[in-house]
């Protein structure tokens, strides 16, 4: 196929340039994670050495577990898991039902609803923090999870609905639904036994996106949840550093940071093949 000789000077130079570019990219992309691990695992005295050692003299693995006894880390994780789980379940459930209601050509106002979804999807979240704060205060929802979970669901819903609708439409043409109804199976049964199983990739992608939003969100969580015991991990972690950027608990911070990053990475590693297809189906096609 390749007509050029394999060892020509030109191809070797190009190959080397590509490897060099890849190396630079990987250093930029991954060095912060290296620094996170190194800072967490350095011995006490070495953390505040200046200039810092690029490679720790010894690895102190117990550094990873100490902060769990020092700070309510387990509690923060449990809170985050609770918020994330509810967000994912509600988002996929409400989103899938709505998408199912929108797949028929005869639906009046479908275009209007789609435009409404695109519109809400594009509204920046940070814009409404002031009125949102009042709204939650008036409803008595500050320091409760209900308001926060519902807000996350509201953020991810437009994307989820548009994504699942695209899957449902592709996987389930009109004629099939008519046939299924004639067979006597009810709408809900059609939905559960026919539509959902063939849309698993779309469901996984939607779940992954709402998972990641709820897991890492900071701004709204920080203005809504101010009671220590109720804080999710993103807000709890912030307390270790504080507004002034204190470095006292840097090692502890990094240890907990590792614990927050690894589960999300493993989760994404497993579902990554669904992500790309989900992104193109939902975000691009709208």
């Amino acid at each position, binding site marked *: 196929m390749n007509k050029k000789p394999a060892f020509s000077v030109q191809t070797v130079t190009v190959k080397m340039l590509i490897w060099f570019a890849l190396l630079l990219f990987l250093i930029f992309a991954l060095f912060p994670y290296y620094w996170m691990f190194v800072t967490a695992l350095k011995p006490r005295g070495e953390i505040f050495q200046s200039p810092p050692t690029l490679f720790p003299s010894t690895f102190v693995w117990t550094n990873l577990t100490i902060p769990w006894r020092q700070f309510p880390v387990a509690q923060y994780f449990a809170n985050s898991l609770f918020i994330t789980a509810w967000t994912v379940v509600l988002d996929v459930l409400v989103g899938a039902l709505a998408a199912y209601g929108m797949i028929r050509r005869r639906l009046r106002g479908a275009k209007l609803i789609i435009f409404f979804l*695109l519109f809400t999807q*594009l509204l920046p979240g*940070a814009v409404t923090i002031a009125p949102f704060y009042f709204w939650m205060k008036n409803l008595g929802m500050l320091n409760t999870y209900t308001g926060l979970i519902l807000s996350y669901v509201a953020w991810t819903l437009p994307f989820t609905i548009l994504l699942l609708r695209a899957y449902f439409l592709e996987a389930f043409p009109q004629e099939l639904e008519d046939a299924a109804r004639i067979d006597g199976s009810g709408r809900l049964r059609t939905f559960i036994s026919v539509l959902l199983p063939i849309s698993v990739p779309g469901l996984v992608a939607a779940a992954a996106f709402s998972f990641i939003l709820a897991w890492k969100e900071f701004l709204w969580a920080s203005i809504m949840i101010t009671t220590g015991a109720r804080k999710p991990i993103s807000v709890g972690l912030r307390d270790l550093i504080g507004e002034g950027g204190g470095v006292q608990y840097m090692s502890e911070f990094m240890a907990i940071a590792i614990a927050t990053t690894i589960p999300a990475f493993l989760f994404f590693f497993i579902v990554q093949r669904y992500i790309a297809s989900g992104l193109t189906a939902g975000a691009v096609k709208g």
Partner: protein
Amino acid sequence: MLKQRNIELLKDYALIAPALLILVALVIYPILSGIYLSFFDYNLLRETQPYVGIDNYIVLLSDPRFLKILWNTVLFAVLANAFSTLLGLASALLLNSSGRFVGLLRALGYLPWITPAVVFVVIWSWMFSGSFSPINAVLMQWGIIKSPISFLGDEKMIFLGLSLPVWSMLVVRIWASYAFKMTMFLAALQNIPQDRIDAARVDGANSWHVFRYVTMPGIMPVLLVVVSLSMIWNLSHFEVNYLLTAGGPKDLTNVITVYLYQLAFVQWKFGHAAAAGIYTLLLASVAAIVYLRLTRSEER
């Protein structure tokens, strides 16, 4: 009696209703009440909250500080978007091959996207902290600098018209946003049929020609959408700027969303914050209109 068809239609609306209810209550209502709030001098530190018409909007626009912050917002959005798009495209091209090793690299490339901002911003600020910075350690070892640089504080160091804190902020903004773009571009690259590339090669096209006439047109629709979508997000970006510098030093890295947060939760001026929010909304709407046009024209 209702016709069968109308009953089915009602059932469809019933299925959609919960979603619409959530969106109206938690997205539309806060925006409408934000517009309402912006017409009041709403200050939590005072007893009365008088109606002031469009005064909040005028006060903001006639404040040089706000104009500076508005300019920063656009500057960061444009530069972060441009650089992260280039990096996202370059990394996607580099990682667009198969193999186990590349698969792992790709998964590692996703990392910034799934890492909470609180985590990566603290790592970066630790890497940027003068005395404990590994960047300084390397630069000093190589003899390029004599004493540590304060990456987030030294506003007197200027490269290409922008101060060092601005560049540092840009680096983190780019780092935080290239991964999403890389993912999108990789998906688009994999949709380009291999036989088109092979055909071009048989016709004698070199790598540049293949890139220019096969690859680029193939990912152009995704590129346009990613850039306009990212523009909306960038104009209203909050977390990195707030967590890394809270807008400092001297508002050099301050952007409109950080400022409106400070107006609301530091100065308790909710009326002003609401008005700043509406300005952000208008700014982002420009990018949103472009995005909607692009996606709609693609449907046809």
